[in-house]
């Protein structure tokens, strides 16, 4: 493992009831990279992303983060490692029992044992960053999908993660709300955040990502620069996929 890699996976396989969903994946991520994971549905993109923070444990293989093999860690050590990897879900998953502000500050307080005042200050700052400080006191049920996803991003950022994992962050949104979420993500990318984004937004992949991983049938079939991938895909499967989506 090269020192410059922030995340590295080796021969990761994942099996669900005798069905091999991930068929041995090798990949590495360098700090500051913005990687778009694209490919047909059922390719294993989300499953792969969830293997990276052990929300879904791989059946075999190794996942190195911060120099440690996550597969060998105990539950408690995993808990503290997850604080360094933020995750944003397709269905937002904001805590329904808390206000927007509490959603953002609860993890710093409960997990990092940060003082309430400090956590509140950071939370307001992050909410401003995603343009939603005026919604601090409301409950998630009164937010639109786009607003909820921006809060979810702020919530993940509150832990100061080293990597952000996005699992189809715009798939559950109305088309006119997609832009507001993507622009927050774009800002984040420009600030140098290391990001892995499972997405169907080809424009985002083209314009924001600096690396495309094309997945099909449980494998990463092609890794390429966006420019090269979209204009001169190396593999037939990628060509075939692109002809359908663009």
């Amino acid at each position: 493992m090269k020192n410059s890699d922030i995340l590295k996976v080796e021969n990761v396989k994942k099996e669900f009831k005798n069905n091999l969903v991930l068929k041995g994946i090798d990949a590495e991520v360098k700090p500051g990279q913005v990687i778009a994971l694209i490919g047909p549905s059922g390719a294993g993109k989300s499953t792969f992303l969830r293997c990276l923070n052990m929300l879904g444990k791989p059946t075999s293989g190794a996942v190195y983060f911060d120099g440690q093999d996550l597969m060998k860690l105990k539950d408690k050590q995993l808990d503290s490692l997850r604080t360094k990897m933020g995750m944003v879900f397709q269905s937002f998953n904001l805590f329904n029992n808390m206000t927007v502000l509490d959603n953002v500050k609860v993890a710093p307080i409960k997990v990092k044992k940060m003082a309430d005042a400090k956590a509140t200050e950071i939370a307001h700052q992050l909410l401003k960053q995603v343009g939603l400080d005026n919604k601090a006191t409301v409950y998630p049920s009164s937010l639109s999908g786009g607003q909820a996803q921006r809060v979810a991003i702020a919530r993940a950022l509150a832990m100061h993660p080293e990597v952000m994992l996005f699992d189809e962050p715009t798939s559950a949104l109305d088309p006119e709300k997609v832009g507001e979420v993507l622009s927050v993500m774009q800002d984040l990318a420009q600030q140098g955040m290391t990001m892995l984004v499972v997405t169907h937004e080809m424009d985002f992949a083209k314009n924001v990502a600096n690396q495309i991983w094309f997945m099909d049938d449980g494998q990463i079939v092609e890794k390429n620069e966006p420019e090269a991938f979209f204009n001169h895909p190396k593999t037939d499967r990628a060509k075939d996929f692109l002809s359908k989506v663009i």
Partner: protein
Amino acid sequence: MKGKVVKLLMVFIMTFSIFTGFMNKNTYTQVNASASDSYLSNIKKKGTIVMGTAPDYPPYEFTKNEGGQAKILGADIELAKQIAKNMGVKLKIKSMSFDSLLVALQTGKVDMVIAGLTKTPERAKSVDFTIPYYNGGQSLLVNSNDNSIKSYKDLNNQSVGVQTGSTQYNLVKQQVKNASLKGMESVNDLVLALKTNKVKAVAVESATGEAYASNTPGIKAIDAKFNTAKAQNVVAFHKGATSLVNAANKTIKAANASQEFEKKFIPEASKQMGTSAKKQKISVWQQMYNYKDYFIKGTEYTILISIIGTILGLLLGILLALMRLSKNKLFHAIAVAYIEFIRGTPLMVQIMFVYFGLGTIVNVPALTSGIIAVFINSGAYVAEIIRSGIESIDDGQSEAARSLGFSSHQTMQIVVLPQAIKNILPALGNEFVSLIKESSIVSIIGVTDLIYQLRIVQADTYQGVVPIFIVMVIYFILTFGISRLLGLLEGRLKHEE
């Protein structure tokens, strides 16, 4: 139905007793045999003899409101007092349903049973009897305007009311052709059935029959003329308690010699008996008002049992739900087995099991038994309510929490449970409300809840329907009030979101 359950339970307890070496193998004990057992000396050591009775059988035993206190009085009680006095010990009376009496005797809950009980070969198999202290006749209660019935022979193909487990039950069954037997626990209910023409006649012991006939307008007592020797009222003791039987026999012999029971105890008891509102020339409602303390006390007990049952049931339910959701296979299996077993058996059987079954090992008072049974029952249902409440929370909520670094414990405590509570609370409220209603079953072991008090007021006032109505209204006020309170609480929780 109740009778069957009791029989089943008796079979169980007898089997149980054999294992614990509780049963004495002597099937018959000579009255004059010299007693070598320690029953009498134990009673003397204790200084008290506990008598079991079912006080809804005037003039033998009944309750009366004396200075706000429900007192158990009657001819049998007078006899019991003499027996206790001659043994040199104090008398303590425990009341319960007639069906439960012999089981209570066998399991040591009471030391003797005097309850207008007559001697039968079946009963003699499980308990020991004294010599008879009274030979009562058999009566039929019929509606006053019904002149078609002159004796048991006129009851062929008719429906006849009898007390479950009573001698009359067997007499009617054996001697009346094609009678349809309506077995009920209390004579009050039977009289009510008679007045509402559910049964053509009610077969009872004659002194009881006279008491009801003279206090209930519209019914009369006639001689049943059953083809039988006069029923012999006896005192029952634990099988093998020969020393007690002998001691009681001495008292009974002396009383029999002077015909004390017929000439003194019954007439005195009859004078003390409660009288109907009509005879007292007061309205039924006035009469019910005089018994308000009974209803209040019953309500208190019902609330007490329900509240303690709910709180302990909630704690047990939380524990069981966590065990069931736990990754530990053993905990999971124990919780599943417990929940399925408790939910698969009736509360009534559980109550009798706790009181009588556990009673063979440790002595648990009736109220405690009732509360224990109610909470072990409620715990199983609460566990399922909590489990389904927790499982109703979307997995995404805990995934989001775990991705932020929450431990599984924190995830449950900070994210899942607060949301689950909102689903759990309404269901818990329903459970509490149904517990109030279901707890009514504890009256069978003599816990003085609303139903028990209802029986007493019925027996005391010869009013069948009005007390039922009052108790119904009390139950409704309790359950409706609690539903509304919980509704308010729910509303406030919803408001927070």
